């Protein structure tokens, strides 16, 4: 079982109000085979906020997270993390961002411990051995640490991927459907992580279909629809209408139609 206090190790973040916006995008767009998955998003999220990215399937949530994580490059527009352009300063952005995608990015033939040790080496984690053991403990996988990931359930894989994030010192954590595949304990673990990150000033952007269980944990929400911001609100979240030719924010009536 996870410990009551989860260890997260942020970089030296400073006071949130002295930091540049954790996320700032201007007319950000990404096309796949000519079709826009993100169609002109202009958004600012202040540092240290926990924000949900809402919307139905195909709204552009995952694509927006992948753009911010530098997994893909923008087709148009700009995006920055902590003031660093994700396209021109991708290497520096990667030092600041942790990303949990639908895929866990784990190696099936390695054990849970070996996967985390490899991640620690790649993340340059100091005191790697105790940090790996602590992360295994925090995500409730200490007893299965030497088992191959191939034999893990989807929920256990998700826990281990969350453990990998704990080894780094990201200032922005991007979570794509973090509750998916998790049991009640696993969902509680994600809740604990959100609290822990918030306490140390880490910004969290979390894609989800629903925020029913997140009300107390979030500062703001951004709702996407067809690659555009339908609504944005809460503390530290500002969205402006797109200025790309042809990109207009859909009306509520259009969406409901």
């Amino acid at each position, binding site marked *: 079982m996870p410990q009551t206090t989860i260890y997260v190790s942020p970089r030296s973040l400073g006071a949130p109000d002295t930091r540049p916006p954790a996320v700032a995008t201007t007319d950000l767009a990404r096309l796949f085979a000519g079709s826009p998955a993100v169609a002109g998003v202009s958004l600012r999220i202040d540092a240290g906020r926990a924000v949900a990215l809402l919307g139905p399937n195909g709204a552009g949530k995952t694509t927006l997270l992948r753009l911010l994580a530098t997994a893909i490059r923008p087709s148009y527009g700009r995006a920055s993390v902590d003031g660093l352009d994700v396209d021109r300063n991708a290497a520096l952005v*990667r030092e600041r961002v942790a990303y949990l995608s639908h*895929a866990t990015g784990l190696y099936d033939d390695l054990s849970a411990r070996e996967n985390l040790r490899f991640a620690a*080496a790649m993340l340059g984690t100091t005191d790697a051995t105790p940090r790996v053991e602590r992360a295994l403990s925090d995500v409730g996988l200490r007893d299965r640490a030497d088992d191959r990931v191939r034999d893990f359930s989807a929920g256990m894989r998700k826990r281990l991927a969350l453990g990998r994030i704990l080894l780094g010192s990201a200032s922005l954590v991007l979570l794509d459907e973090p509750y998916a595949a998790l049991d009640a304990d696993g969902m509680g673990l994600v809740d604990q992580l959100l609290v822990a990150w918030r306490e140390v000033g880490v910004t969290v952007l979390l894609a989800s279909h629903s925020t029913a269980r997140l009300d107390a944990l979030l500062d703001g929400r951004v709702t996407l629809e067809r690659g555009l911001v339908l609504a944005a609100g809460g503390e530290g979240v500002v969205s402006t209408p797109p200025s790309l030719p042809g990109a207009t924010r859909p009306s509520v009536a259009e969406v409901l139609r």
Partner: protein
Amino acid sequence: MNALRVEARIALAVARKDALAELRGRHATVSTLFFAAVVLLLFGFALGPDAARLAAAAPGFLWLAVVFAGILAVNRLHLLETDDGALEQLALYPVPRRAIYAGKALGGFAVMLILGVLVLGAVGVLFAVDVIGAWLPLLTTVVLGAVGVAAVGTFYAGVTVRLRAREVMLPLLMLPALAPLLLGAVKATSAALAGDPFGELGAWLQLLVAFDVIMIVAGAATYGYLLEDG
């Protein structure tokens, strides 16, 4: 100097991870070795029982078997990255891309070296050539050849890893690029087995060194772009 040490640490971590995963899936290693042995046997059958012809053709057989089996080996090392989004995760680590290339190539080199030594031994037994008498130049040739196959293979496996038709595309891309290496390695092996009567061994080894250096530099410089998903 510190940056170099960091990159070396990352490369070793990648190579160690590949080696661990490869050892766990031992069937892949065994099947690669078995494939190399079958290639040698088939070449032998194709030439018939003439011992002199077999011995004369042995250097060519050796390197064709190493290259064909090498394609399987480097492909396998990149297939590890197709596990549940592992390639994307690898690309998102805040590390220099050339260090990832170095690590993958190092893992490929280790596999190719083992493969080369074993195939060399098999050639000695199957085609009755004296590989022990010329062990030093032969081993040098195998080391340089293994570096070249690993350097080229790592680059092209990176090119093809996201393709559905990667098993077809990898040899199509790799084999032409390996032609200079194949020429140099076969000539160097022939010269070494014959006792280097014309003093050409050094020149062929130099060709292999030049090939290796060019391919390593080119691979390290461009591998980062291959990790991008557009």
